[in-house]
C-alpha cells in the first residue's frame, strides 16, 4: 500500500474561512503592534509588554496543544513526553541566541558564560554553525523530528501502544531532562540559556522585536491549524482516525499503521520544535525543567480541557489553563495545584469532550429545540397534514468518534 501524503493546502477552507483567517492575520500584524507601540501606556486599549509576552507564550503553548491533538485526538497516541520536543526546539534556537550575545557576557569571551566557568576553551562540536540563524532554525525542526522519528519507528514497529507507550515517552523525557541537567552536557545545566541580547541584529527586548515575535506566533498557530485541517480532511486523516478506533481491523484490511502513526508523530514533534523556537526569545530563558514530566502531562490536560479531536478546542484549553495558572499563582497560590488536580479529574470524568464538546452539545441542543419548535409551529399551522418526522438527525458530531483511547 502506498503511503498517502497528499497535503492539499488549499482544500478544506471555503472563501468565508479564508476571510476569517485574513482578519485574524490583520489583527495580529497590524492592530496589536499599533496597540503596543503607538498607544500611550495610560490608554485603556494599550497592550503592555507583560501582556504581549504572556499572550505570545500562550500562543506557542497553543501550537503544542494542537500538535498534541493531532496525535492524541486523531491518532489515539497519548504522549506524556511531548515537552521534550518543545524543549529541544527551544534549546536549538537558544544556541543561536546564546551565540548572538557575542562578547557582551560577564566574561567578555567568545564562548557562552557557562562554558567559561566550566573551564572549556572552545565550543564543542555540536555547537558548530550555531551562529547562523537559518541553521539553528533548521535544527529546531530537524532535531525533534529526528529523535521523534527514531523513537517512533522502533516503538510503533514493536506495536507498543496505549499505556506502555505513554510510560516510555515519560521515561524518554525524564532521561533527557536528567541528561540536560548535567553541566558536562554543554547546554548550561541547571541554569540553561538566559540573558539573551540580540536576534538577527535587533535587540531582543525592543518593542518592535516583541511585536514581530508575537505576529510570528500567530502565524505559526494559523499555519498549524491549516496544516492540521488539511491532513485530517484528507485520506490520510481518515486512515489515521480508523487506526485510532480499531487498529487491528485497519491492519487486517491491509494498511500498515506504522507509516501513518510515524508520520503524524514526526510532524507533531516538528511543530512542537518550531513552537519551542518561538517560545524562547519571548520568555527569555530555557532550562531543563521544560522537559519535566509534569510539563508534558500538562500538555495533555490542555487538549483534554479544550476538546480532543477538534483542532480548535486545544487552543482554548491551553488558554484557559495557562490564564488560570497566572491568576491562581497571583491570588491563591496554595490552591493552584488543587485546581489543576481537580481539573484533571473532573474533565476526564465528566467532560470527556472538553470545552469544545460542551459547546457543540449546547449548540446541538439549541438547534434541536429550534427545530422542534419549528416543527410544532408547522404542525399547529397545518393540523390536518400528516405528522412530519421528528427533529433532524444531527446528533453525530464530526470527528469525535467512539471512546477508543
Amino acid at each position, binding site marked *: 500500500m502506498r503511503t498517502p501524503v497528499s497535503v492539499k493546502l488549499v482544500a478544506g477552507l471555503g472563501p468565508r474561512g479564508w476571510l476569517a483567517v485574513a482578519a485574524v492575520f490583520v489583527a495580529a500584524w497590524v492592530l496589536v503592534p499599533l496597540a503596543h507601540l503607538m498607544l500611550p501606556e495610560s490608554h485603556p486599549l494599550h497592550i503592555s509588554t507583560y501582556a504581549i509576552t504572556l499572550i505570545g507564550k500562550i500562543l506557542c503553548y497553543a501550537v503544542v496543544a494542537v500538535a498534541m491533538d493531532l496525535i492524541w485526538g486523531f491518532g489515539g497516541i497519548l504522549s506524556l513526553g511531548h515537552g521534550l520536543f518543545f524543549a529541544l526546539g527551544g534549546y536549538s534556537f537558544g544556541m543561536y541566541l546564546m551565540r548572538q550575545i557575542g562578547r557582551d557576557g560577564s566574561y567578555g569571551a567568545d564562548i557562552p558564560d557557562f562554558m567559561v566557568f566550566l573551564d572549556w576553551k572552545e565550543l564543542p562540536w555540536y555547537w558548530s554553525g550555531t551562529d547562523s540563524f537559518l541553521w539553528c532554525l533548521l535544527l529546531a525542526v530537524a532535531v525533534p523530528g529526528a529523535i521523534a522519528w527514531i523513537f517512533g519507528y522502533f516503538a510503533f514497529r514493536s506495536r507498543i501502544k496505549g*499505556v506502555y507507550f505513554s510510560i516510555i515517552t515519560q*521515561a524518554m523525557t525524564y532521561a533527557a531532562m*536528567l541528561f540536560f*541537567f548535567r553541566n558536562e552536557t554543554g547546554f548550561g545545566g541547571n541554569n540553561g540559556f538566559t540573558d539573551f541580547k540580540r536576534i538577527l541584529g535587533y535587540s531582543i527586548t525592543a518593542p518592535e522585536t516583541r511585536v514581530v515575535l508575537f505576529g510570528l506566533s500567530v502565524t505559526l498557530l494559523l499555519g498549524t491549524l491549516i496544516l492540521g485541517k488539511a491532513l485530517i480532511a484528507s485520506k490520510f486523516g481518515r486512515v489515521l482516525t480508523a487506526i485510532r478506533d480499531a487498529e*487491528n481491523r485497519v491492519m487486517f484490511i491491509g494498511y500498515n499503521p506504522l507509516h501513518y502513526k510515524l508520520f503524524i508523530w514526526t510532524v507533531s514533534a516538528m511543530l512542537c520544535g518550531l513552537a519551542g523556537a518561538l517560545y524562547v526569545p519571548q520568555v527569555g530563558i530555557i532550562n531543563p525543567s521544560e522537559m519535566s514530566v509534569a510539563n508534558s502531562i500538562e500538555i495533555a490536560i490542555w487538549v483534554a480541557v479544550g476538546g480532543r479531536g477538534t483542532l480548535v478546542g486545544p487552543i482554548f484549553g491551553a488558554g484557559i489553563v495557562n490564564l488560570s495558572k497566572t491568576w491562581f499563582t497571583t491570588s491563591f497560590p*496554595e490552591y493552584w495545584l488543587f485546581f489543576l488536580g481537580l481539573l484533571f*479529574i473532573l474533565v476526564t*470524568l465528566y467532560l470527556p469532550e472538553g470545552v469544545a464538546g460542551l459547546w457543540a452539545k449546547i449548540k446541538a441542543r439549541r438547534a434541536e429545540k429550534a427545530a422542534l419548535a419549528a416543527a410544532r409551529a408547522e404542525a399547529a399551522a397545518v393540523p390536518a397534514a400528516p405528522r412530519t418526522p421528528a427533529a433532524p438527525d444531527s446528533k453525530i458530531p464530526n470527528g469525535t468518534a467512539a471512546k477508543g483511547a
Partner: protein
Amino acid sequence: MKRLLLILSLAIGLGAGAVRADVAPEVLKGLASEDFDAKQGAVAALAEAGDADAARLLKALSDDAVAVAGDKLVIVAGEQVLDAANGKQLKPAPASPDSISLNNSLRQQVDGALAALRLLSIDKAERLAAAKALLADMGDGAALLPLFDKALKQEQDGDIKPILVQLQAQASLASPDAALRLQAVQTLGQSSSPAVKALLLPLIEKQGDTFAEPDEKVRLAAQTAIKAIDGRLVWSDMAGQVFTGISLGSILLLAALGLAITYGVMGVINMAHGELLMVGAYSAYAMQALFRSRFPDFVDYYVVAAVPVAFFVAAAVGMLMERTVIRHLYGRPLETLLATWGLSLVLIQAARLLFGAQNVEVANPAWMSGGVQLAENLSLPWNRLVIVAFSGFVLLVVWLLMNKTRLGMFVRAVTQNRPMAGCVGVPTARIDTLAFGIGSGIAGLGGVALSQIANVGPDMGQGYIVDSFMVVVLGGVGQLAGAVWAALGLGVVTKFLEGWAGAVIAKILVLVFIIIFIQKRPQGLFALKGRFVD
C-alpha cells in the same frame, strides 16, 4: 609529639598507682577560655596529671558536660552539679551554667587521652573500648610503643590481645630497629583493613631519589603485605556494592509491587502511586509523634506500630481513589492516567497544607541506627538491612496471599482473563477494589521503609514514580517473580553503573536500556502465557 609523651608518662604513672590531687587552677582557666591553644594546652596538662580527678574531668569533657558557672568550672552530672576541681557536689547548684564548647580536634585529643588512660584499667570492657579507640586513631605510634608492650605483657583476655598485637605492630613501624619493622610488616599483612594499608603505603614510596624505607627486606615485605590486603579488600568492596544494589532493589520492589498488582488486575497505571508511598511515610511520621507524646518509653518501636497503620491508611486512600475516580474510567486507561495524575496533585497539595511544605523529621530508632561491621571496609547499615529483610517478609506475605488464599485466586483469575472470571462468578468489581487496596497498602509499607532512609516531604513520591513504572514495564505483569527480578536487577545494575559512571549517567543508561528492551520484548520479562489479542 609532646602530648604523646605526656600521655605515655601518665599511663605508666597510673600503672604505678593513682595520686589524688585537685585539678590545677591554671588548667581550669585554660579550659574555660575562648582561645584554642589555651584549651589544647589544658587538655594536655590534664593528660599529664593522670589522676582520678583529671580522668573524671576528661570524661566529662568527652560527654560535653563541662560548664562555666560564674567563676567556677563545673561538671553537670544529671541533676547534680559537681566542682570540676575536686568532684565535690556543689550545694546549692549554681544557676544556668554555660557549657564550654569543644571542636573536632579537641574532642579527638580528649578521646585519645582517655583511651590511653583506660588501656591499663582494671575493667575489661574499658580496656576493650580503649583498645578499639586507639586502633581507630592512634596518633603518633612510636611514642606509645612502650605502653603497648607493657599492656601486652599484662593482658590475658583473648578479645583484647589481638588488638594489642596489631597496635604494637602499627607502632613498631616507626621503630629504628629494622628487624622489629620487618616483623611488624609481616604481622600487619594479615589484616584486611584499608587503614593498615594506608600505614604501609608510605614504606614503599619514594622521596626524591631515595626510598622512605631504607631496608630492602622490609620494603619487599611491605609490598607483599599490601598486595595481600588489596586482594582481601576487593572481595569486600564487591560485596559492599552488591549489598547497596540489593538494598536499592528492595526499596524498588516495595514501591513497585503494589503497582504491578493493580496493573495486572485492572490494566490501570496509577500515577498517584508515588503519593501512596508518601501517605505511608507520613503515617510513620504520625506514629512517631504519637509515641513521642504518649509512650515515650517505647518510642523506639514506633516503626513496628507504623507498619500496620501505614498499610491500612494507604489501602483506604487507594480504595477511595478506586471507588470515586478509577472505577468510572473503566476501559479508558489513558484517561485513567490523566485522572490519577490529577489525584496525585491533589494529594501532594493536601499534604502540603496539612503538614507544611517543609520536610518532616523521621528519626531512625536506636536499633536501626549505626551498622554492622563485617569487614574493615564493609559496614552494612542496620536500617538498610532491616529494610531488605522487611521487603522479603512483605514479598512472602503477598506470595502467600496470592497463591494460598481464595482472594488471591480470584485476583489471579481476574488478571488472567477478566470476562471469563466474571462469567464463572468472580465479583470483578469488588476484586478490583480489594486488589487496588492491597496494592496501595504495599505502597504504604514502602513509604514506611523510605521514611527511614530518605526525606519525608509532600513531593517525595515524585522521585519514585518513574522507577516504579520501569520495574513494572520490565518485569511484566501477572507474576510476582517479574517484579522481584526486575527490581533487584535494576537495583544492582544501577549501583554498579553508578560506581563506574556516576549517578546521572547510570540512571540515563538504565532508562535507555529499558526503552530498548521494551522494543524487543514488549510484554516484559515474565509475561503471562496464552493467546490474547493485544
